[in-house]
């Protein structure tokens, strides 16, 4: 039995399951807002654990992280031999279902943000449109509330796969506007939205799209010589985004992360919460750094998908908060370090998944 139909069916099941997951719990909000008033009170007076203030401990943790990274890099060649077995099938999926999943996840985030369906904790559903993420409430910047309608329009185009590459560029412009409107706060989110948009500029709409009918030859596709630089730029952005988030929100605000883990009763396997928090921070930094340097791309992508899923389930958050990351990491896991040469033309990619 060929592996391809199995992968294709699995992808379809994953898309359907993802759809159900996204509807499961839409009212939860960004991590900091999960905490109850009593937990906020306690957090205000909570001292930073010793392991986050001691250079000795953090230095030793960095050394352990380096050792683990070296072991991973040494194992990369071995892993690549296993990857090579399924790589051709995965690369084919990266050009068909991968972009489809990416534009649907991005579209979901855009439409929910634009309609107030992904609000900050404590805000009623469908009342407060946001810009891409729950924390960026458009009502806080009254001159820019029209961005909600722009997001809904972009989402519609993405869902249908119509002018996908142009819409990808428009999403990049939207993020640039977000940076201008929300200043430094938006930096944390910008790379993780620019990256999927860049990927869509490169890949086009993929399967199940109007672009396959209206632009079967991919006339808007960027020149072949730019494919790999665009692909690597997206990986570097995602990786740098993870490093930034880990440093700004975890490494330098550890009590917040620990409070969130305690709130969610995250399984600790007998380890103290500060140690769990330090491990999580280290894993996020190392995974981000590996994406930046372009090593272990597929395993790192799988690890990140697993980690954000585990955290979302444990903390009772909707996976929608990370839908853009699911799309990006899935296509990274499919294609790996290098964007594959076209194995199926845009016009026959529908047959490839049918």
């Amino acid at each position, binding site marked *: 039995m060929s592996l391809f139909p199995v992968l294709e069916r699995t992808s379809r099941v994953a898309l359907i399951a993802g759809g159900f997951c996204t509807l499961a719990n839409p009212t939860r909000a960004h991590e900091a807002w999960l905490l109850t008033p009593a937990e906020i009170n306690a*957090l205000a007076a909570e001292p930073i654990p010793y392991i986050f203030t001691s250079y000795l401990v953090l230095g030793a943790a960095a050394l352990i992280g380096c050792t683990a990274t070296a072991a991973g890099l040494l194992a990369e060649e071995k892993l690549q031999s296993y990857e090579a077995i399924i790589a051709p099938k995965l690369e084919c999926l990266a050009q068909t279902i991968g972009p489809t999943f990416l534009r649907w996840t991005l579209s979901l985030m855009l439409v929910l943000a634009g309609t107030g369906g992904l609000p900050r904790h404590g805000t009623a559903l469908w009342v407060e449109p946001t810009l891409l993420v729950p924390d960026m409430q458009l009502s806080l910047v009254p001159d820019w509330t029209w961005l909600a309608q722009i997001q809904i329009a972009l989402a519609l185009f993405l869902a249908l796969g119509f002018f996908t590459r142009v819409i990808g560029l428009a999403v990049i412009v939207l993020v640039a506007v977000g940076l201008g409107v929300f200043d430094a706060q938006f930096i944390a989110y910008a790379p993780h939205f620019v990256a999927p948009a860049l990927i869509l500029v490169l890949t086009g709409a993929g399967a199940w799209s109007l672009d396959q009918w209206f632009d079967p030859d991919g006339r808007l596709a960027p020149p072949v010589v730019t494919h790999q630089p665009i692909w690597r730029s997206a990986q570097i952005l995602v990786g740098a985004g993870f490093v930034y988030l880990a440093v700004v929100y975890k490494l330098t605000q*550890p009590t917040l992360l620990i409070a969130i883990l305690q709130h969610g009763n995250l399984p600790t396997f007998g380890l103290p919460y500060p140690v769990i928090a330090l491990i999580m921070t280290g894993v996020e930094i190392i995974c981000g750094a590996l994406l930046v340097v372009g090593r272990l791309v597929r395993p790192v992508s799988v690890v990140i998908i697993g980690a954000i899923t585990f955290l979302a389930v444990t903390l009772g958050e909707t996976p929608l908060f990370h839908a853009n990351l699911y799309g990006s990491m899935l296509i990274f896991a499919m294609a790996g370090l290098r964007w594959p040469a076209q194995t199926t033309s845009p016009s026959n990619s529908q047959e490839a998944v049918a």
Partner: protein
Amino acid sequence: MKRKILSLIGPMVLIAGLLEALAAGAASFNTGNTAPRSVFLKLPADIPQPSLALSILQDASGNWVLHIDTKAFQFTDICISASEAVPVGHAHVILDGVKIGSAFSPIMHIGVLPPGQHRVSVVLRGQDHRALIGQNGLINAALVVYVV
């Protein structure tokens, strides 16, 4: 073998340098910092520190009305995405451990309370919803009301 070692050295130097730099930087940064800045807004020591006192009254229709008497704090209904460390903002009102709303003025109508003992607490928040922290910690107050 030589190629394998070379392919290991480049990324390892970068990642090891990053991790060690972050370890040194974080240890230094975290020493002396406590309340996470994503949730709390620390007010400078050289301004009058806000304080608050609460009282609650039942009106003729049986509804409870909370009065938030603040000093050195200005209520506003304008919320912004990132506020300065100034004592301007609103208050979060919490009834029996659950936030019931935001007060953008010193008077908040709570409504009818069921019979029994209830704890009402109030925390001052900045214009970006972060909890204000003064020199003595969180700026909050609480009272207990007995409803018969």
